[in-house]
């Protein structure tokens, strides 16, 4: 069966984990890994796994895009370089899946709004953040039952699973996630809090979702909606698990989740890494299925 060829940009934790997931996909094939340091471990590992590599950033990839038939690129670099990467690749008709907090394209949480983005043939979709992927499905599960005035999430991440990029840019993580709680989750106001815990052995990623409903919560319908949503996420993240709740305190609805990863590149505690790459991969697959079926044609954006 024909597969859609992909480039992975950024050879850190996320880019490396993506290699495993994209390789397993029935419709995607990883072809290029793009880095900026010729001596990096990430590039060496990608070469060992059979990918072509360049250490010259996206500019090193551009001459090969058409020859190698690259149609989808995953960007796991930083918010600061994503816009340029996206512009250059969109001009060549490559669709971008943005795993940085840049968020220049629409925000995507697969079980909530992926279908919508595929139907619009978006050329750039943003995956928000690991905390966003882990919590926004739950916010939406409550908000689709009744209106939510305020949703607040707390993501606790194992210190070993957090790379230097996220550490240096925690504010961007906070802003992007808070915004997505509103835009995608459907709450009127949103707030995100991140905690990095260094416990040994490392803690599995934890997420607490609190929603304040406008009216008294319809407990039975909220419980059903949340459990149904969890089953949807489990289709691409099997380790997405309800620990406690939904529990109700006045108008406050609280849900306590745990996310264990598949242990592809980082160990299972790094569910944050897994849910991000799995969501990105699921998103790429939806676009790839449409391309293969002939129902979607990627169009190069015009050079500015």
């Amino acid at each position, binding site marked *: 069966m024909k597969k859609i060829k992909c480039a992975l940009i950024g050879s850190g934790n996320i880019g490396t984990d993506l290699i495993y997931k994209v390789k397993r996909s029935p419709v995607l094939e990883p072809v290029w890994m793009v880095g900026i340091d010729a001596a990096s471990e990430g590039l060496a590992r990608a070469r060992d796994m059979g990918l072509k590599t360049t250490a010259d950033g996206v500019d090193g990839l551009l001459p090969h895009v058409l020859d190698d038939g690259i149609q989808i690129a995953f960007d796991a670099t930083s918010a600061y370089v994503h816009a340029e990467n996206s512009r250059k690749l969109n001009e060549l008709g490559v669709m971008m899946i943005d795993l940085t907090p840049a968020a220049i394209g629409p925000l995507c949480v697969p079980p909530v709004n992926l279908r919508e983005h595929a139907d619009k043939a978006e050329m750039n979709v943003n995956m928000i953040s690991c905390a966003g992927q882990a919590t926004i499905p739950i916010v939406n599960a409550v908000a689709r039952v009744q209106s939510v005035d*305020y949703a*607040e999430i*707390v993501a*606790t991440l194992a*210190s070993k699973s957090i790379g*230097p990029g996220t*550490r*240096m*840019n*925690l*504010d961007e993580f*906070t*802003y992007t996630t808070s915004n997505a709680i509103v835009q995608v989750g459907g709450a009127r106001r949103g*707030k995100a*809090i*991140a*905690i*990095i*815990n*260094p*416990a*040994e052995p490392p*803690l599995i990623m*934890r997420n*607490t979702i*609190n929603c*304040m409903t406008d009216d008294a919560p319809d407990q*039975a319908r909220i*419980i*059903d909606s949340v*459990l*149904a949503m969890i089953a949807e996420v489990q289709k691409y993240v099997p380790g997405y698990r309800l*620990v*406690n*709740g*939904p*529990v109700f*305190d006045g108008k*406050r609805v*609280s849900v*306590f989740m745990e996310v264990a990863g598949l242990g592809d590149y980082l160990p299972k505690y790094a569910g944050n890494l897994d849910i991000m790459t799995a969501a990105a991969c699921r998103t790429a697959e939806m676009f790839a299925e449409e391309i293969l079926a002939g129902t979607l044609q990627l169009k190069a954006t015009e050079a500015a």
Partner: protein
Amino acid sequence: MSSPSSLKGRKVMLHDMCLRDGMHAKREQISVEQMVKVATALDDAGVPMIQVTHGGGLGGNSLQHGFALASNEDYLKAVAPKMKQAKISVLLIPGMGTMRDLQSAYDCGARSVHVATHCTEADTSPQHIAFARKLGMDATGFLMMAHLNDPQGLAQQGKLMESYGAQTIYITDSAGYMLPADVTDRVAALRAVLKPETEIGFHGHHNLGMGVANSIAAIEAGARRIDGSAAGLGAGAGNTPLEVFAAVCERMGIETGVDLFKLMDVAEDIIVPMMDHLVRVDRESLTLGYAGVYSTFVLPAKRAAARFGVPARDILVELGRKKMIGGQEDMIEDTAMTMAKERGLLKDVARTT
């Protein structure tokens, strides 16, 4: 141990925490008027630094940490212009507070900031420390739960914060777990690696009754700044009681510049009457100090205990065993529910359709 006389003439800067750490003990319910009254009295007593924010700092207003009676901006705007000599500081924990919040606090009169991270995660603070310096603020790197890192490890974390621009590095005994020798070792390790002009501070909690002794140990080892709060108003068994500490300093010849009797009056006449509960070493706060648990956990643990029927002490000990750190208040409710299920007091939810 050096003799008391060796500290004679040593200058130490006191930093009051009543209106920030004390917010925890008041469930964030201190009014703007009370803030102005307390800060004005502390200013008049010559306390040079006063921290004013939500207990969780900038960005702290949340379901996770409670909603204060007013915004941080409203508190700062009311307090800062009234100060004759004291500088107003704020707390910022990256992951919750942001640079936008810091800019806003600066615009409202804050001129000093504690940028706080867990004691092993200093590298989440470079943006915020650098931004504070850019604003011209007095910038402190505040290493929380410092008992969970060894002296050398803590010194390396302090060195990182210094490299981002922090002018002072604090050892923060958030659990009130440390004993004087722990403090001495950590201050000495920091002093050995930091630049001579970088100051060291100590922030204590009184859960084992060691706030004053630990602060003196810090000074002996080279610390120049000490956090405390009048009448000890703060999380857990409170902070180092500032008036007690000031009295000990005076006896030892350590120069703080504060008026001891005025400070004693602030504690007795203003702070104590404000307390919802007597801030002291009670069973739960002693558990924090004994088990090394974050001090702000005590009140939410008592609430979870009432809600789910699991004793607060059991919840706190379990949180310590699970190595929960500052800011993880959500895990109190979660842990209480998990324990309640194990004890047959609570069931999992089930679908109705």
